[in-house]
């Protein structure tokens, strides 16, 4: 049989990336949940927003046995964050940057911070925004993390400097330094002093 003569094959699985995403949702989510998530994916597509993070969020919820309303709610919140990130970072913001921006917003960074970063740096902000999110995840306040990242972007530091900062702050926190203090000291270029050991 000549494969080239095949005409209407496997539209669900093979029509393209959209169908591939649906197949994962259909396989893992309850039908009604999959339907609601698909509607959100459609909204994302119409707005030219990335859909893969939304699919991953739904799959994450399913793997953690979250109730369907919570799964749909999480996807909806992330979609909202992607929209807000697009507003703050601009229409030309590439997908990795948009996703990093959405994560930063959900971590508590104000939209104004993202807009300010955009004004300060024309090139991609994916790494600074990811580091901001990770600092907050380690216990640094969102406002402090936002200020730190803004300062570093304003100073024209490279992506590797942000990654180094994150690594150093993480190391300090593991030795017992309070997250905010660790950030302050690393920003000033000085290693943070660990608290005295308990007797």
């Amino acid at each position, binding site marked *: *049989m000549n*494969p*080239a*003569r*095949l*005409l*209407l*094959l*496997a539209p*669900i*699985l*093979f*029509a*393209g*990336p959209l169908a*591939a995403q649906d*197949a994962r949702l259909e396989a893992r989510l309850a039908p009604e949940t999959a339907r609601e998530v698909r509607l959100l994916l459609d909204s994302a597509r119409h707005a030219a927003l990335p859909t893969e993070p939304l699919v991953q969020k739904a799959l994450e919820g399913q793997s953690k046995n979250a109730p369907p309303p919570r799964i749909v709610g999480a996807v909806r919140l992330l979609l909202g964050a992607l929209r807000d990130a697009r507003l703050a970072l601009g229409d030309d913001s590439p*997908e990795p940057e948009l996703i990093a921006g959405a994560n930063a917003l959900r971590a508590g960074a104000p939209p104004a911070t993202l807009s300010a970063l955009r004004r300060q740096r024309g090139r991609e902000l994916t790494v600074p925004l990811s580091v901001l999110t990770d600092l907050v995840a380690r216990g640094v306040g969102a406002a402090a993390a936002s200020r730190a990242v803004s300062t570093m972007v304003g100073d024209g530091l490279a992506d590797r400097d942000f990654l180094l900062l994150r690594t150093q702050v993480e190391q300090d926190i593991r030795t017992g330094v309070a997250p905010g203090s660790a950030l302050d000291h690393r920003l000033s270029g000085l290693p943070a002093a660990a608290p005295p050991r308990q007797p």
Partner: protein
Amino acid sequence: MGHTIAALVAKARSGDLNAFEALMVHFRPPFGRYAWQMLGSREEAEEVVQDTFLRAYRGLASCREPERFGAWAFSILVNRCRSRRRILSRRNRFRADDHDGVESLSVPSREEDHELRETIERALALLPAEQREAFLLKHVEGLSYGEIAEITGTRIPALKMRVLRACETLRISLRGELHA
């Protein structure tokens, strides 16, 4: 993916290996799944899927509907799996029943072992190859009977019977083993 399948195929045709890589990344999961389940071995599946991608790249000029690249390449995969099964069956002892002679499908190595997968693999191994093929194409890959008929060259009534028999055999062998 920022490009359509058709656009990637067009780029790959002109020698853009990055575009072809993107196609492979996209189709490796369903191709790998089908090949692994059909052949019962991850190693055999890797070999067949690699072979499929190589043939697909070399035959891109004959893919007349680039937007259906996936289906076109999948038909290559199904045929490669059939060829591989024939080679495997010649290597193994032939059983005097209606199976195709693939007596012992290799089981996953220890580090990949998982109880449920093992159970299902054992159940799939009980199916004659043509029933396994029809069942996987219908219920796992989600193709219609018309589509399966195009790929396999088998008439629809025969395909439906194979799927029914496969489901019945699986129902019996999985009874009590899986919780719905």
